């Protein structure tokens, strides 16, 4: 009877199940030009606005003049985190909009496999979304973010995971409270922007706000970016703190998501997905 089922069908983690979810989203993406456009549209607009502002500031500010492109770099890196969050949350919301989540959770798909698939989809969406603006920055402003070299990978990785944390937290809330909570996918992450030190050093924040800022990974990433651009130094200490905080937050948020899956099973939320 089950001759067609592979031996790993019952395993705790199976790549084919993760692959199935990724394939499901790639199928949707490739037939929907608005989804493709949306990925690159906002990062490009942001980069254009801040790029021209940066050109103006370069002539009027000694701080920005010390490291031309610091604002453009900040915009692009902030977009990594924003897109990582959105890429994660949107892939989850696609299942809600299609009222397909219940169907998925009665297959052998495990919740942690779903999380891995959403993270990979987020990586794909973020990469596709940020490639065009990063190339436009080279063309328009002669700012090549890839000149950051290996530190860029470190920043990218930390910001991706930070974005996943926000996206997974949003997904857990949407699972519990329904599509009424979907706007959190867009707005929640902006709460982190003022304390992430994207466009200014954390040092200018009031002291009590600094301690909040340093409890979040992005603050260390943007401080690290400025260290590379101003001092040409990669701060391993900042990288390590961001990575450690990311590990802690991602573990906590994953546990929260798994708890919400259980709550959904108790309350019958998989049967009645919607507003």
């Amino acid at each position, binding site marked *: 009877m089950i001759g067609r089922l592979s031996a790993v069908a019952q395993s705790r983690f199976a790549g084919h199940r993760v692959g199935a979810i990724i394939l499901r989203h790639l*199928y949707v993406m490739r037939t929907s030009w608005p989804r493709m456009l949306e990925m690159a549209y906002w990062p490009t607009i942001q980069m254009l606005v801040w790029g021209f502002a940066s050109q103006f500031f370069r002539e009027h500010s000694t701080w920005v003049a010390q490291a031309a492109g610091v604002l453009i770099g900040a915009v692009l890196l902030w977009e990594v985190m924003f897109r990582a969050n959105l890429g994660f949350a949107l892939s989850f919301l696609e299942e809600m909009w299609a009222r397909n989540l219940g169907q998925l959770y009665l297959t*052998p798909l495990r919740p942690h496999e779903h999380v891995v698939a959403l993270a990979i989809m987020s990586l794909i969406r973020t990469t596709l979304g940020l490639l065009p603006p990063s190339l436009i920055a080279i063309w328009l402003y002669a700012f090549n973010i890839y000149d950051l070299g290996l530190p860029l990978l470190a920043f990218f990785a930390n910001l991706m995971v930070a974005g996943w944390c926000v996206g997974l937290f949003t997904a857990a809330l949407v699972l519990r409270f329904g599509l009424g909570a979907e706007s959190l996918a867009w707005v929640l992450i902006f709460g982190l922007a003022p304390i992430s030190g994207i466009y200014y050093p954390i040092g200018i924040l009031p002291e009590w706000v600094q301690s909040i800022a340093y409890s979040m990974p992005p603050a260390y990433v943007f401080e690290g970016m400025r260290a590379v651009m101003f001092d040409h130094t990669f701060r391993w200490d900042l990288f390590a703190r961001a990575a450690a905080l990311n590990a802690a937050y991602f573990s906590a948020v994953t546990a929260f998501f798994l708890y919400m899956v259980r709550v959904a*099973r108790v309350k019958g939320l998989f049967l009645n997905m919607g507003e």
Partner: protein
Amino acid sequence: MTDLPAIAVTDLVKDYGDVRAVDGVGFAVAPGEVVGLLGGNGAGKTTTISMLLGLLLPTSGTIRVLGHDMTNAERFAVLPRMNFASPYVNLPYRLTVFQNLKVYGLLYGIRGIDNRIAELARDLDLEPYLKTPARKLSSGQKTRVTLAKALLNQPEVLLLDEPTASLDPDTGDFVRAYLETYARDSGCAILLASHNMQEVERLCRRIMIMKRGRIHAEGTPADLARRFGRDSLEQVFLDIARAPEEAAS
């Protein structure tokens, strides 16, 4: 075939706050048996099926499918061997029929998925629609795609929630005939929730009628008709549905 029931449910209870949706339900379905689950709206059929699928946790009671407890992580051992179809549950509407079946085939870890899809498309007359997005399908076509999804993994346990609702008589008959053949040839245990009495009489050897979360009557269609002094299952159903609580049992 083994002596172990494909589905074994004991003292199943589901409360939503103060409301008891399922109240001490117990039954077993043997491998190869097709059992009907009848009941009016709100009788507890969908809640019961959802608990059998592991999508809903019971307040108390036990559910074992193919010997595995569906209330904990053991269910992942049996989920590849069971499936579900309902016209009320959507498939991603932007994906084509083939893409939908491919994604679900991968989720079930089916080897040779393309061949299996071709086989089901031929059996369920879906070949012309494989490249059609799910949103463009008619009700009958969607029902057949949902059924194809449910049969992808050649399930040993199949749960069906009104599989022929909103179908024209011809398509309904086609689906019933297919299910009849599948159950006979595969030895699959099927639990069929339906409002269609003719469908239940045709497909099911045994019937359970639910009311207010409880099983109020159980037996073959002929047994039930005789017990209630009626000529048809529909009359039995109406007697139970309209009877005061104490008289129905």
